[in-house]
């Protein structure tokens, strides 16, 4: 699974971190860091993370 975050849209709300903590993290400066090729077993979590992103900045490309 390939994950793309539009960093121009992202405003570091961190909602994705609650849904998929293995894929998304906020660094010490509060900026988003993420795994761009997570294991397919995490698909449900990543879909949830994409849903709850207030800016709808997360895209899943298969």
């Amino acid at each position, binding site marked *: 699974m390939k994950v793309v975050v539009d960093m121009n849209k992202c405003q*570091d709300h961190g909602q994705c971190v609650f849904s998929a903590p293995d894929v998304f993290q906020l660094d010490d400066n509060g900026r988003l860091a993420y795994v761009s090729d997570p294991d397919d077993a995490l698909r449900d979590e990543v879909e949830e993370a994409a*849903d*709850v992103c*207030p800016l709808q900045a997360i895209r899943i490309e298969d």
Partner: protein
Amino acid sequence: MTTERIVVVGASMAGLRAAEQLRAAGWTGTITVIGDEPHMPYNRPPLSKEVLAGKAPFESLAFTPRASTADVEWRLGTSVTAARLAERVVVLDDGTELAFDGLVVATGMRPRRLRCDGPCGPDSGRHTVRTLADAQGLRDELTRPGVRVVVVGAGFIGCEVAATAVGLGVTEVTVVDPEPLPMLRPLGELLARALHKRHEERGVRFALGTGVFGFEGEDRVTGVVLSDGTVLAADVVVESVGSVANTEWLDGNGLDLSDGVLTDEQLRVGDLPYVVAVGDVARFPNARYDGVPRRVEHWSIPGDTAKHAARSLVAHLTGADAEAGPFAPLPTFWSDQHEFRLQSFGAPALGIGDVRVLDGDPDGDVLVGYHADGRLVGVVALGGHAATTGAARYRAQLLKQPALTS
């Protein structure tokens, strides 16, 4: 042979999430989504912020529907005028009747309008902010040089629009509200006072403790007359005075429509297991709190309600009798105003009588806790990143707590 059909009435975020979650719950029959706006579902929060400010294009708001919804039938620019739930039929605005096996109510809210004397209509200078068309019209007017803006209502949308207008360089922005402070009811006095100060420091003016009596002007508004007789000169008025549930189409079915659509703890409507409601039109009991049914106009609610309601509806229609636990979402909201953010987890409104500073200082980054019976029921951060991160740390604690009902 006929295919089984679920009709979703409302094609905004809640309608889209419902369609996606019906598929995720295993529904393989037809899904028809009907919406009165001409657009595919789009994300509304930026309408009062980034998009109004011109920092993001209108096209950027469109949701990307999940692949599982590729065969969903969208009937856009179409409204549903009536429903006969016992017969499982909805009536469209062209008179067509559409039969359904299951129904999802997702018609949302529309802005409440001020009913007082003065110019009204599309070119009167009076605006609301709910739809793409609303925001487009408002942006066109806010970007005219020298424009004077009066925002009626100091809630989420009013405060955001005022901040955006100042950011656009509008020099005269006045927010009017009958309450003594902005966002007093959702936040309580401590944060409302801090918010008020920040807005004033950034050039927003306030006329508080007063309502609107009427509007001056012939075809276009030229001034806003306050209840105390003061007149504020205005070229543009933004009315952000709450919302009205779009439930008229459900009249005549014996439902409780006194404030949105009353649901049970599975989001079912009127004891009909084949009708559910989602989004901000649903007045549901939250098992996490006191069980009192409430409508919740937070952005997170369409997603939360859709997931639960879709499971309950599909389980009923497919004969799977797996009764889920009661709906018990952890509410969350945010609001971006000027360069600071409000971030909430839990239900601050239920703990407004016992507000304590958990971290920081109201003049800077601050984290505030709201308590009921001495127990933390919600947190709100105001400020920059440090504050909102602090709020997130309390989220797990709020999630773990047992229900408030004794």
